[in-house]
């Protein structure tokens, strides 16, 4: 496919000289007037004049047409026409700022995004047929399409991400299509690092506008913590509404003020999905004024203490399990505490106790060492611990706590995915149950085991967070993500687990075999909500300097040569006329 175009199309305005030439011939180089008695001896026109008409249609002499042709050829040559093939001409890489600030209102029903569209279309139409690569700049850049076929960029340009890393997008462009001309479409002028990079074309239709935003919202037990910010140069009155319940909280924020607000939740509200909305008349961006918060699953871990444990062990266990550490004893349990050798399908806390006559537990002054990286030992302190354990007892799994060289607490993930925690402890001679380590250990255990339940680690996320979830079956190898806009994506799962970047803000649904879950993603980038940085900016980019492999063939030399030939012919014509003159 051959592409044609003009390097400097504005030079075609030189064609207005044709009008001057016509005027010149009409008013200055007009025909010599001569009265004659011998008109009947001259050539007659091809068509007879109309009856009664005394004038024939005026024709310009051949010199006029040659002069006009020469002018047109010179103007065309100055405009720099060229042709090249689609494959040879540098492609265009368009980076679309996909952050939610592009949705800001710009007046008359327009947004920063829609205001940029006409200029974008104009630049795209400058060279029809040119290859175009589309990139979305969000938290992480991605290639949207290589426009070998028609691509509906307006539809793909969702503008829902909470940041636009243009630098990363430019790096991706340069890696993907190093010879491309680059065009950035955003809502602010180039940053300092790109201000003088003239090759990068830039379209910004942004405007400095006032904006209020919810930058943070978190559910706790019985309350909701939220944080709002005023990104304006003037005080902004606002109204904070929580539904269900329609609790309203009016406030006025000072310019630039960031305020934390705690709202108490009713028991009804605690169980339900919450919608938090910030309203203000002068607010330019609605996207960051709402938060959807789903109820998190903080139900206690069901635990069962099996028989076979010593009385002391059972006593210490029951004390800690009832101490609001996140456990509830039940017959059908997620965690079973039992002596070694007892099978179970649940997670197991296997308490190794001394076997009478076979092993004798000892208390040593060897240091108690805790693994700093494991979720189970996070925040634990071994201070003033007396740990009596059976010496030289080999425990399977990862050592989490050791006494000297002897592991006393290990963790092993079984083939069925469940945990086995091995505890080597003689409670009668130990003070573990009376130290802060003991309830903290079980708090960590409850947290870890809750995370092992099928479902997402947390239902309420922010843009840019990672969604981690466990599926009920280890055999499930894929899941379906349905985004707020209804689009779907199939994501992989392995060993019943999956992790993926948070979808666009809103309520998304995750579905798999025997599994369904909802998550709420909220935008939460104060920098993106601050529209005071936005301003219009336009710059034409240029193709990269390395044009060796881009054979752009100019028509200008041919047109110049043609103009010269026409002028030479013109001179010959004039010469002949002059020769013929008496």
């Amino acid at each position, binding site marked *: 496919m051959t592409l044609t175009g003009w390097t400097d199309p504005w030079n075609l305005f030189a064609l207005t000289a044709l009008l001057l030439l016509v005027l010149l011939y009409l008013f200055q180089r007009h025909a010599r*007037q001569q009265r004659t008695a011998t008109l009947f*001896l*001259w*050539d007659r026109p091809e068509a007879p004049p109309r009856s009664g008409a005394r004038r024939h249609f005026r024709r310009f002499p051949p010199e006029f047409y040659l002069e006009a042709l020469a002018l047109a050829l010179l103007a065309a040559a100055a405009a720099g026409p060229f042709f090249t093939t689609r494959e040879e001409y540098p492609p265009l890489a368009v980076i679309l700022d996909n952050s939610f600030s592009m949705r800001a209102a710009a007046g008359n029903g327009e947004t920063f995004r829609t205001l940029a569209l006409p200029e974008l279309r104009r630049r795209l139409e400058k060279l029809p047929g040119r290859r175009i690569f589309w990139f979305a700049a969000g938290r992480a850049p991605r290639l949207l399409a290589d426009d070998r076929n028609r691509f509906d960029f307006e539809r793909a340009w969702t503008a829902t991400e909470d940041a636009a890393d243009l630098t990363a997008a430019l790096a991706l462009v340069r890696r993907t299509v190093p010879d491309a001309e680059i065009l950035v479409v955003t809502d602010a002028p180039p940053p300092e690092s790109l201000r003088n990079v003239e090759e990068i074309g830039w379209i910004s239709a942004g405007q400095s506008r006032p904006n209020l935003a919810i930058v943070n919202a978190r559910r706790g037990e019985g309350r909701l913590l939220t944080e709002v910010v005023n990104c304006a140069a003037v005080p902004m009155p606002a109204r904070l509404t929580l539904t269900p319940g329609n609790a309203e909280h009016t406030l006025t924020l000072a310019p630039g003020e960031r305020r934390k607000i705690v709202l108490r939740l009713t028991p009804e509200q605690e169980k339900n999905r919450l919608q938090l909305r910030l309203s203000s008349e002068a607010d330019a961006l609605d996207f960051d004024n709402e938060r959807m918060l789903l109820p998190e699953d903080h139900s206690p871990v069901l635990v069962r203490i099996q028989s076979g444990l010593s009385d002391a062990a059972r006593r210490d266990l029951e004390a800690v399990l009832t101490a609001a550490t996140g456990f509830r004893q039940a017959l059908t349990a997620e965690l079973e505490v039992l002596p070694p050798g007892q099978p179970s399908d649940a997670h197991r806390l296997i308490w190794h106790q001394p076997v009478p006559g076979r092993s004798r537990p000892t208390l040593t002054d060897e240091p108690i060492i805790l693994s700093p990286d494991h979720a189970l030992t996070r925040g634990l302190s071994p201070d003033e611990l007396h740990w009596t354990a059976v010496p030289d007892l080999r425990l399977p799994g990862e050592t989490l706590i050791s006494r000297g060289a002897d592991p006393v607490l290990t963790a092993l993930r079984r083939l069925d995915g469940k945990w086995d925690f091995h505890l080597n402890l003689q409670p009668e001679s130990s003070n573990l149950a009376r130290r802060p380590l003991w309830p903290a250990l079980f708090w960590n255990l409850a947290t870890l085991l809750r995370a092992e339940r099928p479902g997402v680690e947390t239902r309420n996320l922010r843009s840019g967070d990672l969604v981690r979830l466990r599926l009920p079956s280890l055999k499930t190898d894929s899941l379906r993500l349905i985004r707020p806009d209804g689009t779907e994506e199939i994501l992989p799962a392995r060993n019943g687990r999956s992790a993926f970047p948070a979808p666009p803000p809103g309520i998304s649904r995750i579905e798999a075999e025997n599994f369904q879950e909802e998550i709420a993603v909220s935008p939460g980038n104060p920098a993106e909500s601050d529209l005071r940085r936005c301003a219009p900016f336009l710059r034409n980019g240029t193709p990269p300097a390395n044009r060796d492999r881009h054979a752009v063939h100019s028509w200008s030399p041919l047109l110049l040569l043609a103009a010269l030939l026409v002028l030479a012919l013109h001179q010959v014509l004039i010469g002949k006329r002059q020769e013929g003159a008496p």
Partner: protein
Amino acid sequence: MNDLFKRTLQTVLARAADARLASPRTIGFNGRRLGRRAGNALEFSEYREYRPGDDLRRLDWNVFGRRELLMVKEFSEEVDPRCDLLLDHSRSMAVTPEKSAAAFGLAALLARAALNAGFSLALHHAADVWRKEPQPEAPSEWLSPEFDAPANPGDGLARYAGMLQRRGLRILISDLLWPEDPQSFLGGFSAGAKQTVLIQILADGELEPVPNGYVMLEDAETGEVRELPIDDAMRQRFRERAARHQEAWRRAAAEHGALLLSFQAGELVPDWSVARLFQTGVLQ
């Protein structure tokens, strides 16, 4: 009457003081054949002494044999000759002031010469209407010295040919520049005339094509305007047509026994070099 006409008239009348219009019989005699009208039956009037230029056929050899005197016979027409002088007043005669002055002056000269020779002169102003001049002897008092008629003599001949005297000398002063066939005009103009003289007055270079270039030509008589990009080929075609036009008049004049003389206006105005009129026997 403009100054050029006045000066012309002054010069012409001075030149014409002694000029005499020649007899129709002698007009054109310079060794050439006189035409088909020789041998008309005329009434003998008197003898006169032979003058150089007289038709040798009119010598009376009997008188010579008897008296050794060369005497020519005068016929009644020569005793009372008639002359119709037709002046073309069409606009084409005024393409240049010199052309119109030449035509006017020549008419005045021939009128005076005719009167000097005793002709019964009728001067006709051939405009869109032919009008007979009441005072042909006083050119300064002629009816219409302007050349502004939209028609050429060919247009009015059919209607006004009856005004012309029979068996007289008919002289047309015109540029002969109209497209109609000269044969039909001359056939009518010379019918009943003893002799016909056509004096063509052309502006200097009038039959030369205009220089190359873009020209708007306006017909002096019809007002038709034609815009032409003149080039060499077009000029050549003009020359060829002009030559054919002149040849057509010459042929027609020859066939009708008319004398055709062409003058450039520059020959007549201001110096009035009219030797050819004498050489061809129009004046004596």
